[in-house]
């Protein structure tokens, strides 16, 4: 065993791994946000509420219908995604020709309404949701005890992020998406249904948030405020990565998880502010974000 900065290596590795786990959530959530912003130019403030809905729906499937975690992993993103499609069709699409600010206000209002509704129905203390039996227990890594479930969270998040990135960068559908981001009018002229593409993208982004919600249910308390606590941090991640940059949001998500993890070890009092300090510095030096293009 050796020490780095006066910290035993064991503790350091443990904290870095935990940081990576939190980074998985940041990456998944900021990925959805970045995709939505890239194509719709909407700052989706309801993202946290949709993440919370994912966790709640997971709990509801189990308590009301006896449907467990694994099915929830599939069903919840689809159901919440459909909710996203409806939201886009009925409300958000009406704001496309207006400034960003209107989309932000609309989704912020929606987030408050959704959270309020859940609060009235379920209270704020949260609801119990256990870890799926197959993933209970953990591995002794020598430097820390790693619960199997957390390992699963990292693996799943990494694969989903990678798959999404491949979808957008390497497939025909992704090419349409990127083209529509650049110049929707031209893409439409080629006979591609851009409004439908936009709706599906929003649904997809929302589904990613819901997936993060399912993954969060067994480890965080399932409560109406869970998204509100998370969303501000995730916004900072997106800003640091560069608004609308897919790869940027993924890399920044994991990286900031690591930095936050280190702060929790070195000076825990600052762990909720460190991301915002980094955001301020990045905005000063590189206003478009680390991976963003000049707008």
């Amino acid at each position: 065993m050796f020490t780095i900065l006066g910290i035993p290596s064991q503790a350091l590795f443990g904290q870095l791994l935990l940081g990576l786990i939190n980074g998985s959530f940041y990456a998944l959530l900021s990925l959805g946000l970045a995709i939505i912003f890239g194509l719709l130019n909407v700052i989706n403030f309801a993202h946290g509420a949709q993440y919370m809905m994912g966790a709640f729906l997971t709990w509801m499937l189990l308590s009301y219908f006896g449907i467990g975690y694994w099915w929830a992993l599939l069903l919840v993103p689809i159901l919440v995604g459909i909710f996203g499609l409806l939201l886009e069709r009925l409300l958000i699409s009406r704001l496309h020709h207006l400034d960003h600010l209107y989309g932000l206000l609309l989704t912020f209002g929606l987030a408050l309404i959704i959270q309020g509704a859940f609060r009235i129905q379920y209270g704020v203390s949260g609801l119990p949701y256990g870890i799926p039996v197959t993933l209970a227990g953990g591995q002794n890594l020598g430097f820390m005890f790693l619960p199997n479930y957390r390992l699963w969270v990292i693996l799943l998040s990494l694969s989903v992020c990678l798959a999404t990135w491949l979808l957008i960068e390497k497939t025909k559908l992704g090419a349409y998406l990127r083209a529509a981001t650049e110049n929707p009018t031209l893409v439409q002229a080629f006979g591609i249904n851009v409004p439908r593409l936009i709706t599906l993208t929003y649904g997809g982004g929302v589904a990613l948030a819901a997936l993060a919600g399912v993954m969060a249910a067994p480890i965080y308390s399932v409560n109406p405020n869970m998204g509100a606590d998370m969303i501000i941090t995730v916004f900072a991640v997106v800003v640091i990565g560069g608004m609308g940059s897919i790869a940027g949001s993924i890399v920044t998500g994991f990286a900031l998880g690591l930095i936050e993890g280190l702060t929790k070890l070195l000076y825990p009092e600052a762990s909720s502010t460190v991301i915002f300090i980094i955001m301020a510095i990045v905005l000063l030096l590189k206003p478009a974000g680390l991976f963003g293009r000049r707008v």
Partner: protein
Amino acid sequence: MKLSALLLVGLFAGAYTVAAQAEMDVKIGVLNDRSGVYADLSGEGSVIAARMAVEDFKAADKGIKVDIVSADHQNKPDVGSSIARQWYDQDGVDAIFDVPTSSVALAVSQVTREKNKIFIDSGAGAADLTGKQCSPNTVHWTYDTWALANGTGGAMVKQGGDTWFFITADYAFGHALERDTTALVEKSGGKVLGSVKHPFPGSDFSSYLLQAQASGAKVIGLANAGGDTINTIKQASEFGITQGGQKLAGLLIFITDIHALGLQVAQGLVLTEAFYWDLNDSTRAWSKRFAEKNGGKMPSMVHAGVYASVLHYLKAIEATKSKEAPVVMAKMKEIPTDDPLFGKGQVRVDGRVIHDMYLFEVKKPSESKGDWDYYKLLATIPAEEAFRPLNEGGCPLVK
């Protein structure tokens, strides 16, 4: 003529005073967290409890008209003190009740003293409210950090838990709870190996739990509350902390937290509370009525404290026929407290209310007969021993 006119005026004035006595308007404000981490243990439930106290006191029959207003302080001291100021200055509020979150409670206590009104706290924990920062206008009803340290901390030390590590919420309450528990542990010959302060509110506590685990302390003291405690306990079970032989001491746990955790995760926890719905016939009867009005949810000790404190306040109003803070406060400290939830007790000169406290253990899922059947009574801590001795708090009101 002149004389009769004077008499007439006198008569009217007299009649007016009688009428005013017959219809005395009292306005009380329930100020708490209505949307954040403490909304379930205080929130609307405290308003329900206050209303029940007014009903049970039969205030209307006694010529006292009580208005209840409520507001959300969002756990922010600046929000809380500006609401308190507005209530006192513009809305004619005579007394403020509940106020969980110690940082907010300390701010409201100061505003109340400045405006010379009455503040009876139920939800907050910091023992400083009746210690160094005590005020002639403040009463602290339900529990405090000293009593929690004494109850839960004392029990853990007795079971051999002589080395501690704290996971502490980084604000007034967490600091006070860590300070009071540390004092108790060291007094009993134990040692505190370290502590970590986390931002309030937080969601991921695994990092702090690992630090606690690495410290090798026998007991991990959770000096936080509400949603923070829930997440810490949930994640401690995930990281196999208790299987490794370390014990968790939830220094402040409410029944609403146990409900949220589920018995599977919470079983075996030892905790200190001032009230439990299933203590005796009168607590059961009251709690049943409360639950009917509160969507089936049982009361927390904070709700019970709001009920009992409103009741005591109205008794003092009735006895003095006055709303003047010094008069009412003197009466509240003079007459003993007596209500169906806390039994007999007393408001001390420093504002601390003295009553029995209880040490509970959370039942195993197999022992529980159903929803809300969560606690086994381990010990009753008698009123005289449950709270910090009067002369040790450093309150300037104590001579």
